[in-house]
């Protein structure tokens, strides 16, 4: 049984590596689609004034005159040795920028997931406890609102309303890292995390509701109830435990989305996270930053999915055996 587990995980790992290679190819092709990107990025409109010889020497300098395959592998080789490129605006390496931005996004994503679970799971269980009742309908309306109100709208509205009427805008005066000022840092994280959690609690709620409803109709629950297991214990031990598998899957998926999908909220609340780094790179035409950061995010996404997979193998012995 153990070797089997190891085998499946190994297989998943190989697929993940192949996927990552594909991701690298897509990112490379996507950003090479911009003609003369590196040169234009550095020189801007002065590019037009270059003589053909100057242009050729610059192309040789950036390696643009070599075959695309060679360019790809030298870029990939650089990545594997930690060379993510150089940001000329920030005067620092993209690796250093990413090392600063990643923890901000991770903290935001973790807080968001905790909030979403705290909101979504109980609401889903409440909805499922009396299907098609008024409370179920109320739960569904909340869920629909969560799915339909765009994060940028909620973020902008919250920020404008609170700063105008309560004069409360902790995100106004620069980002505070948790090491520097934990209180202020948490204050800055509350609104962004709540905004994101509003959207993410909705799918978690729907998943919880349908999983609980499905499991409640299973034979072993009826048997447990017939045996006289108290309702509270039945909910916790028998129903929720089994509903965990789809909930964990959904949570993992959403956590992965948050790593890059928090870009809008990071932008509105001026949090220097990884999504904002991509956006800034796009706005400033720093393609090395965009290219490497997108790749880092995709890597994180694949890793999170692998971990989710491993986690529900732990929770559900049936998956292990399959």
């Amino acid at each position, binding site marked *: 049984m153990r070797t089997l587990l190891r085998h499946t995980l190994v297989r998943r790992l190989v697929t993940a590596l192949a996927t990552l290679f594909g991701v690298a190819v897509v990112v490379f092709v996507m950003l090479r689609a911009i003609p003369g990107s590196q040169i234009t990025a550095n020189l801007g409109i002065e590019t037009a004034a270059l003589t053909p010889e100057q242009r050729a020497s610059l192309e040789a300098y950036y390696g643009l005159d070599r075959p695309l395959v060679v360019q790809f592998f030298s870029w990939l080789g650089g990545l594997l040795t930690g060379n993510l490129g150089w940001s000329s605006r920030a005067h620092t390496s993209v690796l250093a920028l990413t090392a600063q931005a990643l923890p901000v996004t991770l903290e935001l994503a973790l807080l968001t997931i905790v909030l979403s679970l705290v909101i979504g799971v109980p609401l889903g269980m409440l909805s499922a406890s009396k299907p098609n009742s008024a409370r179920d309908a109320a739960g569904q309306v909340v869920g629909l609102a969560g799915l339909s109100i765009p994060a940028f709208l909620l973020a902008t509205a919250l920020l404008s309303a609170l700063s105008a009427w309560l004069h409360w805008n902790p995100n106004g005066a620069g980002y505070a890292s948790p090491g520097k000022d934990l209180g202020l840092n948490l204050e800055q994280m509350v609104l962004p995390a709540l905004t994101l959690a509003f959207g993410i609690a909705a799918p978690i709620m729907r998943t919880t509701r349908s999983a609980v409803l499905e499991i409640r109709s299973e034979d072993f629950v009826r048997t447990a109830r017939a045996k006289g297991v108290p309702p509270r214990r039945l909910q916790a031990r028998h129903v929720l435990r089994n509903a965990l598998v789809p909930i964990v899957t959904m949570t993992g998926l959403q956590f992965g989305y948050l790593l890059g999908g928090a870009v809008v909220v990071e932008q509105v609340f001026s949090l220097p996270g990884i999504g904002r780094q991509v956006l800034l790179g796009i706005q400033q035409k720093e393609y090395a930053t*965009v290219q490497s950061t997108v790749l880092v995010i995709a890597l994180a996404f694949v890793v999170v999915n692998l971990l989710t997979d491993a986690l529900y193998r732990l929770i559900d012995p049936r998956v292990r055996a399959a």
Partner: protein
Amino acid sequence: MTDLTTPLAGTATADLPPSAGRVAGRVRAFLHNPTALAGGVITLALVLLALASTFGLLPHDPVAQNPPARLKAPSAAYWFGTDQFGRDIFARVAAGVANSGLIAVTAVAFAAVVGTLAGVVAGFYRGSSDAVISGLTNVLFAFPPLLLALSLASVFTRTWFTVAVAIAIVYVPIFIRVARGPVLSLREIDYVRAATSIGEPRWAVMVRHVLPNISSIVIVQVTLALSWAVLTEASLSFLGLGAPPPAPSLGSMIYESKTLVTIAPWTMVAPGVVIVLFVVGLNLLGDGMRDVLDPRGKDWR
């Protein structure tokens, strides 16, 4: 599954949608489903609004500036008020719905056609075409959707069409997955195998027997994808990566209202309410269609 003597009915059909019924029955079921009906009414109202804007039937022009009428509150003349340039917000919201709708419909149409065909081919032929298509699907799924749309939108010179293409690429893998799964079990069903064994060409089998059977799943997915596409388009234009100005867009209207909201709250409320209505309408329509067309899988998303 090569043993032809095994009856397949119970196993292979179990996860397939019910076969296509009569159109009239479907319409009746749709009209009796409150969710679908509500979604349909909201969506229809917004489509009419967008059409009215496209054909110039509204009293004001969405881009004409009128400085004396800056930041006027909603009134009989300006139903949703005016913005900082004196432009009529109702006209701008209507034009924004038209623009977002055009981009979303184009993107989803492209994604649905390409994704469904690729999914059917992958599921029907298996083998190397399946390996390539599924591999590509995995790669595209490794990007958070908004981030992929953002990066793609930054590559092209921006027009409404390139924004639509960027969004389409994000949704292609979803349609591939939605189509491929049922085709895997469809290809093992007796009448499909029979059609193949009497020598019908494979493309004919796909068009005549496979595609009609996955049509309801694809239709439901199209409605839901439309709501995500509207959200993605609005997020992109909020971030300044949507269709270029002066074309009004709901996302950029909300971005511009950020500094105005305390003195002129209607500049945010109007586009905000309309975009939420738009997405709610499409979501309800999608959920309702799923109840009507595909009663088995209420929660498979």
